């Protein structure tokens, strides 16, 4: 009798109480997952009147108020430079609805099976610069939308050059670079002309422009079906790297250095020439605040070029927002709207100021037109153009990972420059062929 009574009570509980929880589930608002690479801090001295800690948090809040859709923001793990964060979520069966990151990582997901065509959802696509939007368009479909574009050129530590007694030349060539390097080594002990690092794949912004400087190219213009880097000019570039390491013009053991370590050394005033974005120069401020560095004068220039070669272009590329295509049209609309908020004019302006980058929207104007560093970088881009590393090709993230281990082996004396490029060419062409 007692058992029967308990059983009846249990059944009644299950029937009456548990459905109340499912009622709550039905009314739960839609929640989107946003995977985001980095945050735009407010410009120095700026205090947001609404008290938001950063721009993305503010824009997400505006989106949530407008649509009633919640956003769960996750940050990309940038430690290896790979697409690990995104792949892990996809493997777990929970791909993010919106993914915002460097174009080299996002481009892998820009295919019609994964990404939503944003043309029907964006009414102001003509506000984007056509050349930038073209990098996110495949077969007429807009598979991503751009945030501001970053630019990379060479930063010169003027204090080191002054201490070394080097005068800036009329033409900035490789020979002049080596001349400056020798003077720095002789007259400014403890400082280096440049830096090479190959511990992770984020080293490519350091070595890629040097290939252009020597007249070598990763791809023929517009042809991403094979690499053309394995040439005498490519080999000359790697021999130049060996010269830099062998003569002590760069910190030793480049195979043990990564991009974060390199930036630390620059911020401590130890590196005369280094490839950087405007945003990275803020590392100097942090170093001074932490007491590990002192202020020094610096400015942007182009990379030097080999004799007979044209002036070296800058590196540049957009940050892109890709939206995951689902069978739920309401979800697609909400995700596209979130992507709109995160690529709107407000973000483009603030991000351009805090990151020193270039807005992708015409309506965002040139917020840094009075900033000397930005203007220096913009001048390099306007005069010399931009290197083509295939950043927005679907295979970029796989191709990108091929060079740094080979460079490491070269620095350790296990491979010659010829062997490095032979192996790189074989690996890359295999990836590009789809095998």
């Amino acid at each position, binding site marked *: 009798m007692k058992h029967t009574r308990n059983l009846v009570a249990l059944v009644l509980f299950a029937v009456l109480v548990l459905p109340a929880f499912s009622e709550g589930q039905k009314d739960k608002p839609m929640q989107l997952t946003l995977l985001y690479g980095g945050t735009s801090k407010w410009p120095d001295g700026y205090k947001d009147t609404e008290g938001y800690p950063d721009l993305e948090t503010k824009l997400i809040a505006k989106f949530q108020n407008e649509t009633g859709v919640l956003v769960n923001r996750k940050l990309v793990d940038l430690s*290896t430079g790979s697409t690990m964060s995104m*792949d892990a979520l996809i*493997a777990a069966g929970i791909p993010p609805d919106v993914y915002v990151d460097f174009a080299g990582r996002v481009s*892998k997901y820009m295919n019609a099976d994964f990404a939503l065509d944003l043309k029907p959802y964006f009414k102001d696509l003509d506000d984007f610069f056509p050349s930038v939007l073209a990098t996110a368009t495949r077969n007429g479909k807009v598979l991503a939308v751009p945030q501001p574009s970053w630019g990379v050129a060479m930063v010169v530590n003027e204090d080191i050059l002054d201490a070394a007694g080097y005068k800036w030349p009329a033409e900035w060539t490789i020979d002049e670079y080596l001349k400056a390097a020798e003077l720095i080594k002789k007259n400014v002990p403890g400082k280096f002309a440049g830096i090479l690092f190959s511990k992770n794949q984020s080293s490519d912004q350091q070595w890629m422009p040097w290939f252009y400087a020597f007249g070598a190219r990763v791809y023929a213009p517009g042809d991403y079906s094979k690499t053309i880097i394995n040439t005498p000019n490519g080999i000359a570039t790697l021999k130049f790297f060996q010269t830099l390491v062998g003569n002590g013009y760069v910190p030793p*053991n480049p*195979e043990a250095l990564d991009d974060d370590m390199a930036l630390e050394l620059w911020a401590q005033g130890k590196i005369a020439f280094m490839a950087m974005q405007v945003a990275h120069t803020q590392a100097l401020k942090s170093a001074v605040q932490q007491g590990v560095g002192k202020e020094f004068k610096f400015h942007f220039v182009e990379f030097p070029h080999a004799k007979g070669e044209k002036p070296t272009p800058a590196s540049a590329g957009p940050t892109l927002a890709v939206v995951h295509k689902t069978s739920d049209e309401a979800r697609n609309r909400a995700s596209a709207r979130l992507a709109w908020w995160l690529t709107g004019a407000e973000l483009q302006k603030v991000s351009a100021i805090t990151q020193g980058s270039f807005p992708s929207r015409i309506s965002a104007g040139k917020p840094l037109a009075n900033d000397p560093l930005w203007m220096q970088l913009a001048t390099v881009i306007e005069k010399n153009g931009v290197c083509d590393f295939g950043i927005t090709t*679907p295979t970029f993230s796989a191709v990108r990972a091929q060079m740094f*281990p080979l460079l490491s082996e070269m620095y*350790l004396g296990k491979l010659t420059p010829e062997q490095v490029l032979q192996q790189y060419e074989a690996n890359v062409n295999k990836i590009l062929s789809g095998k």
Partner: protein
Amino acid sequence: MKRMAHLLVLPAMGFFLLFPAAATYLVGHLSLFKTDYVTTQFVGVLNYVTILSDVRFWRAMANGLIYSAMIVPMMLVSLVTVSLLASDFSTRVQNAVKFAVYIPVLGSGVIIANVWKWIYAKEGLANWLLSLVGMGPLPWLNDIVLAKFSVSLMFVSTLMGAYLIIMLASIISVPKQLIEAARIDGASGIQVKFRIIMPIIAPTVALCAMLLFISSMQMWEFVFQLTSGGPAGGTATPVFDIYETAFTYGRYGLASAKSLVLMVVILLAVWAQKRIERIGR
């Protein structure tokens, strides 16, 4: 009674068998595909064929064997020494030793690795100690051979506590009558340790050796934090290579195939060790 015992153990056994079995099945399934989680293509055994010519993977396997060759003797000698010495003292002292040696086991691998990075830095503790005896600074993490030793030393010092507990328990379980009888017969302390205790705890030592071999082959977090597999893959272990294949190069099918190959290699090694043990007995 026996049936009841089996039934009672079944849920826990089922749990422990189901998840690894399911994971192994899923990994095996994935190993038949070429996938970067955006495009997926069935390739059959092609990934396994690729492994045969994958220099990095076999170099990592060789590194795993080298680590085992360094870690197993280092750990066993340290364990036997510390546990035999500690066994002479009271339970209180033994517990204090266990606690002190076990602390690194409880620590976060990331924090411990960063401490060891500082120890191995150019101006770190290790080079300072060398300078006291007039020796120059060594590239603890930048020389391929030395870097392997550095990682092995970190492994031994961090995980010794976990194995010490097993070893001490084994020593304590040696029948006291045997030790007393040996003492009565005139055996010295060292003779008791090496002629009585050591043979009795030999199976435990063998077990620790096997577990250490498996751990050496599967080591990942220490390598990731300390050297990132460098210089130039010189310190990469098989699991580190699998991690890179998956998350750096985006080749998840190939990484899955490598995982299964590693599992088979470890199983074969353990089987071989057990056979040798049986023959030895």
